[in-house]
């Protein structure tokens, strides 16, 4: 392939990774479905799938990195467009859950309260755990037996951990941008320091998010089973948490590559793709903070 000049689009040679990754994906999916239904080999199959997928993607991305000097500007543009559209698909994934939140809160709950047929006396409110959980929301903290029995729950104070986490993510976007400016100015040391700080902030965010979940389950009695409030809360923040994990991992790989000197002031697409992704999870968090925690 090296004989190709820069005005040829880079068409890679045949590769076993896509096929092998499909097998790994099959193991994850089939293993997951089996595990959920109590079939003994389920968790093993799923683990094999995840490990296989991780190893294969590591090798696949490795080969892309190795051949990247041969990419011309057209290939670079393809990657940029591909990443942008991938982020758009992620936006639509979150849109489904935000849409569900809107529908449940503003339509489903009021309609349930309006009809006296099913649950007479149920009043619309938010947060709500629905008719069977109508009496669950407490003013103070529930005690341990109430948590065990799931008869009471309290809310997360948005001005405590969530506000701190908002600040952490917003600052991490700033440090990431400083790092980007540094790499464009060919200042590698600065770029590494600020990127490392960004990754660190990402992991601190995840730590506090885990802390918040533990608090919700153990002290507040707020779980995924706490009606629609718990459902929307944990699925929205949970999927956001997965995406932060992925984003932090992407930036960590970018950091390691930066330390190895993979990037130049002109060519650092992997950095930019990771940065776009990071800003995307940041924006989603701001949406979560407003619509899930505050309002």
């Amino acid at each position, binding site marked *: 392939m090296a004989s190709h000049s820069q005005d040829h689009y880079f068409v890679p040679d045949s590769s*076993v990774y896509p096929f092998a990754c499909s097998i790994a994906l099959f193991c994850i*999916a*089939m293993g997951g479905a089996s595990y959920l239904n109590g079939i003994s080999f389920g968790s093993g199959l799923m683990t094999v799938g995840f490990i296989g997928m991780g190893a294969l993607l590591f090798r696949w991305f490795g080969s892309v990195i190795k051949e990247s000097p041969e990419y011309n500007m*057209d290939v670079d543009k*393809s990657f940029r467009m591909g990443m942008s559209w991938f982020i758009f698909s992620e936006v639509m994934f979150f849109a489904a859950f935000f849409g569900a939140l809107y529908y449940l809160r503003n339509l489903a709950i009021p309609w349930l309260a309006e009809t006296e047929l099913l649950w007479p006396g149920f009043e619309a409110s938010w947060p709500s*755990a629905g008719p069977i*959980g109508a009496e669950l929301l407490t003013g103070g903290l529930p005690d341990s037996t109430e948590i065990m029995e799931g008869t009471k729950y309290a809310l997360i104070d948005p001005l405590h951990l969530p506000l701190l986490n908002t600040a952490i993510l917003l600052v991490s976007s700033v440090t990431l941008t400083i790092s980007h400016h540094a790499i464009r100015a060919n200042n590698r040391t600065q770029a590494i320091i600020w990127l490392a700080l960004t990754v660190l902030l990402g992991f601190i965010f995840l730590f506090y998010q885990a802390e918040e979940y533990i608090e919700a389950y153990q002290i507040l009695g707020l779980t995924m*089973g706490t*009606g629609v409030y718990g459902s929307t809360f944990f699925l929205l923040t949970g999927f956001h948490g997965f995406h932060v994990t992925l984003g932090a991992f992407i930036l960590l790989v970018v950091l390691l590559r930066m330390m190895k000197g993979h990037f130049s002031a002109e060519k650092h697409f992997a950095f930019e793709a990771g940065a776009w992704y990071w800003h995307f999870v940041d924006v989603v968090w701001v949406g979560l903070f407003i619509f899930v925690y505050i309002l």
Partner: protein
Amino acid sequence: MSHAATAHDHHDDHDHPMPTGFKRWAMSTNHKDIGTLYLIFSLAMLMLGGAFALVIRAELFQPGLQYIDPHFFNQMTTVHALVMVFGAVMPGFVGFANWMLPLMVGAPDMALPRMNNWSFWILPFAFSILILSFFVPGGAPASGWTLYAPLTIQGGMSVDMAIVAIHMMGISSIMGAINVIVTVLNMRAPGMTLMKMPLFVWTWLITAFLLIAVMPVFAGAVTMLLTDRHFGTAFFNPAGGGDPVLYQHIFWFFGHPEVYIMILPAFGIISHIIPTFARKPLFGYSSMVFATAAIAFLSFIVWAHHMFTVGMPLQGELFFMYATMLISVPTGVKVFNWVTTMWRGSMSFETPMLFSIGVVFLFTLGGLSGLMLAITPADFQYHDTYFVVAHFHYVLFSGAVMAMMGGTYYWLPKWTGHMYNERLGKIHFWLTAIAFNVTFFPQHFLGLAGMPRRYADYNPIFTEFNQWSSIGAFCLGFSQLLFIYIIISTVRGGKKATAEVWDNPEGLEWTVPSPAPFHTFDTPPTVK
């Protein structure tokens, strides 16, 4: 552009020795090979889904229960639809896109070839999971392809298998769609501006946008199903404040654009075939482009017409009724343009043209019955009857699938280098078109008379129409064996095809030799 068969300069071929066996097919980065894989997969799924349909029609040949129990009947209707929608129609069009888009825009390959291969190879594994679900306790999902809660909350392990299979199909579709968009936007030959792109390229560009916008929403919906089933959430459970209707809203927010995902590329294909055999340029090219975009935009704001009877507020019913009717305007523009392209053309009626005219005629019938269904008060009568079944088979079979058959005959000489047997092709068309109408036209009457869909048994007054329908279905199904025979015999031999194949067709794909070499347009052509 010039149509002289200037065999393109392929001096670069020595860089890529043609691989063979596993390396060629499983490890491919070649858009033509991956396109072939998609098309073969699609044809295989068409046969499998067709076999399920024949089980349904055999059972419905007469009232009462003959061959299968009602639970298995429900599994058949569910898996028939899932296999046809996600296994036959969508991958079929992706196969056409893979083969034709790089040729049509003058690109050496798809923009992201390895991802392209991954998109394909996920599918056989995803469908293995779906088919394996027949063998778990309780059998395959039996909730209908829409997987409505609360039925799917109560179902067995097969529902989880369907959910993970759908996640895999979604990953495949999104990656495929990203590849199409990037190829079209980034890899066009110099001089090919957006408004010079062939219509198949335009329709696929818009289809790909729809796919990226709605497949993740579907993934969200089935994820909520999964957590409701196993993790105690209450999205679709009113006791916890949820609402099963929420599932329907999210599903159809995906589901309605999905039906345009399945028909827009078909519009693209026949917009190529009709000008070729009418020997006139396509009438109203730019209005075709804008009509496609308008249909795509409207597809996002009509979803609740699938759920008129669910108990929506009156304003909602009215909004979705009028928005739905609005779609007939851009669709009408398209039908008008196809007919006007044929008007005073020097028409000839080779098999692809027969299929295209069949599509224009029969799809329009399906569009008209769709317009009837869009009328909210009338829909209260038609909802979930065989009228709906007839409607969507007119748009999906005689729209999407017949357009793909026409496209297959149209480009098969380019793919294989051989002409297919014209006589057999025409026989295949007439068998298909007639058997299709025998199968589905009576279902309009059944629906209007009140026969509900998705039941294994029916009132004896419906017997006669059901028997027509079942006879037609078996004829339709076995006619497709002829299609497979024609394809195989064309691959294996036949009259040599020229580079142009047809009489002065338009498009870059006709400037490369037939069969199209393994690598084409290593150096981009210039479009004037």
